């Protein structure tokens, strides 16, 4: 197994520490978010913790640009949007409990099954791992790729954002 940044001990140690902090806090926050927290605002904050941890992981995997995007778009936009929505739906902020026991049991079984399948698949696969990290700043290349190789999906996403814009305005508009 090729660990994180094998060439540089400092990177390895710092990276490992960041990973474990992000992973453990992320898992705990996610766990609490789905199992425990009733209040919607706190749920959104728990998700923010997860997302922040993930941004850290992106950073240690050398996806610096993506880490910034994660912070700006996810935490800065999506979560804020969610919190707005939560505030606009008074009476629903304190989530009155969860679904029926049968539904929860089913959800648990299904989630465990999916996890088991993925765990089995991931660990049994002999991944074709490459030695060295791609140790570059990714902003430039990603920007370049978006306008060359990934031009088509980029253009499609622009149409998609238009649809979302128009759709969201029309649907959410007061009658």
């Amino acid at each position: 197994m090729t660990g994180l940044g094998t060439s540089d001990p400092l990177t390895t140690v710092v990276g490992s520490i960041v990973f474990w902090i992000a992973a453990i806090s992320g898992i705990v926050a996610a766990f609490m978010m789905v199992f425990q927290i009733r209040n919607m605002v706190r749920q959104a904050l728990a998700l923010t913790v997860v997302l922040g941890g993930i941004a850290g992981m992106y950073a240690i995997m050398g996806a610096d640009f993506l880490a910034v995007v994660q912070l700006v778009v996810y935490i800065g936009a999506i979560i804020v949007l969610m919190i707005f929505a939560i505030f606009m739906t008074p009476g629903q902020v304190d989530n009155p409990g969860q679904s029926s026991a049968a539904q929860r049991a089913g959800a648990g079984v299904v989630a465990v099954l999916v996890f088991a399948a993925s765990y089995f698949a991931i660990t049994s696969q002999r991944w074709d791992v490459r030695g060295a990290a791609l140790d570059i700043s990714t902003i430039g290349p990603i920007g370049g790729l978006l306008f060359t190789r990934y031009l088509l999906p980029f253009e499609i996403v622009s149409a998609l954002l238009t649809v979302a814009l128009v759709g969201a305005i029309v649907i959410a508009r007061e009658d």
Partner: protein
Amino acid sequence: MQAQLWTILGLPLMAFVVIVFFTRRSKDLSSFVAIGAMFGSMLLAYATFIQVAGGARAVSEFEWLRLFPAGASEAAGESGTALRLGIQADPLTALMLVVVTTVSFLVQVYSRGYMVEHGHKDPGFSRFFAYLSLFTFSMLGLVLANNLLFLFISWELVGLSSYLLIGFWYQKPEAWIAAKKAFITTRIGDIGFLIGLLILWNVGGSLQFTDLFEQADLRSGALFNASLLGQPVLFWACLGLFAGAVGKSGQFPLHVWLPDAMEGPTPVSALIHAATMVAAGVYLVARTFPLFEAVPQALSVVAFIGGFTAIFAGTMGLVNNDMKRVMAFSTVSQLGYMMLALGAGSIAAAMFHLFTHAFFKALLFLSAGSVIHATETNDVREMGGLRRKMPITFATMLIGSLSLAGFPLLSGFWSKDEILVAASENANVVLFAFAMLTVFLTAFYTFRMFFLTFAGAYRGHHHPHESPPVMTVPLILLAIPAAAVGLWGSPWMGFGFQRFLEGDRFREPVGSTPVMLTSVVLGLAGIGLAYAMYGMRQPAINPRTVGARSGGLYTLLLNRWYVDELYMWILDKLAIGTGAVLAAFDRQVLDGAINALAELWRGLGSGLRGLQSGRVQNYGLYLFGGVAAIAFALLVAQGGMAR
């Protein structure tokens, strides 16, 4: 001649289109369009018939589309397989053309009188003629087709238009229930038809009759060599085709729709339940007969179903008081005869009986329609004494009934005789006995109905009088072929019918005299018995008291009447009892089974409907559950393969 054939087919379709889109508002105009088109078709059909009798044959087909091109399969070959559609004329087709167009024409003329009530034309008058035209078009397509695909398409159209016709009076719940029942019951048979068609296509590689017959003739093609469940695949294909025929021709166990279908207007019954649609099953088997011939097992099935249906339906006819239903049972029974003949290997006998039956049964139905029109009821217990009030109907009905009962020298006599001879030669002895017994039953119930209608005093509440000429003229016109058309196939005319149909393959039957005599005696006995019970002013045997009196025993030697009494007793308690039991079986068990099946499906549907809880997370559960199920199923299968 090709253009002529397409015109025969096209005229009724044109009439349908014209009526629906243009003349719908004018009732008279609509009916004239339909009748005019039919008349044209009929004349052309006669012309075709004469040409075919003179030895002419015609095929007109075009390549409809090309399946599986670009050489991607070994089975389909380099250039793919062409699916051709077309029509043809040969003796079998020419014969059916004559029957269909003649009966259809007369029925349409008659309907102009029948669909009038108290001087008012039925509100759906135009619609009725549109449906009739559509039906005739479909039926003509069915008989003209030169391949199974086109035949199947027409076959389904026949089903559809008969659905519309049976349910024509949709205000009556019985009518639309019957229509639905007819449509769905015949569709059950059609599943078999379609499967047979797929087998023939897959293994035989073609749906053209000529291509298929070449393979079957040789008894060596892939159809014969490939086997499934220990039988040649051709056997299953034939069984599938026959299932379709069983549905359309109302054979056991799919006969249940036909008696109910009598809820339609009586001219409809005459057209589709006597002469055309129900005959389609017989025609299908006759048309694909070379296939059946190659697998004798399939022919045995046909013979058995036919023979059993003949007697089964006959016994049920004994106990019914609804005029049209009795005729429906009789139709089922006669169709059973035709199937029996086919099973015994004689297309000529089957088609001959189909031919004569079409005329005399249509005549019977139309006469019954005339009676029903006058008395406004179907129930024979509310009729009686109509001989003087409706002399023309009386005469035509008598001719029809005698013909049906196989009275010597009338049409039915010759054709029924042919079937009995064929059965005596080639069929199982039990089936032959069934057929003979059915002769007696047929004569009895036909004349029971006849006497109840015309003899004695009127028991109803209306003031019946003879129908208008627009109805009686078609009756008279139909009475002529009903009486005389059988002569064509008689020895006196050198078996002209059989020679026409079979050509060189025809051989004169030998040793048929004892069979013929027996059947005549049985038929006369049936008529006599009916007369004794229902025809005499003072019945020699009072049917009402038969049951009571049969309990008081007379000694064996008391008088010679005792034989008759015993006979009565047997008849009443055994035959009529059996009939009642069979009818009850039919109603309770078969209908029950079909209803239970429907209920089962609906129950399953309601159960599955519970999954649709309306809760989005529930749906999500199935979404993710489905992923897990697929993944694990594949992983397990993978593991199994790896080991």
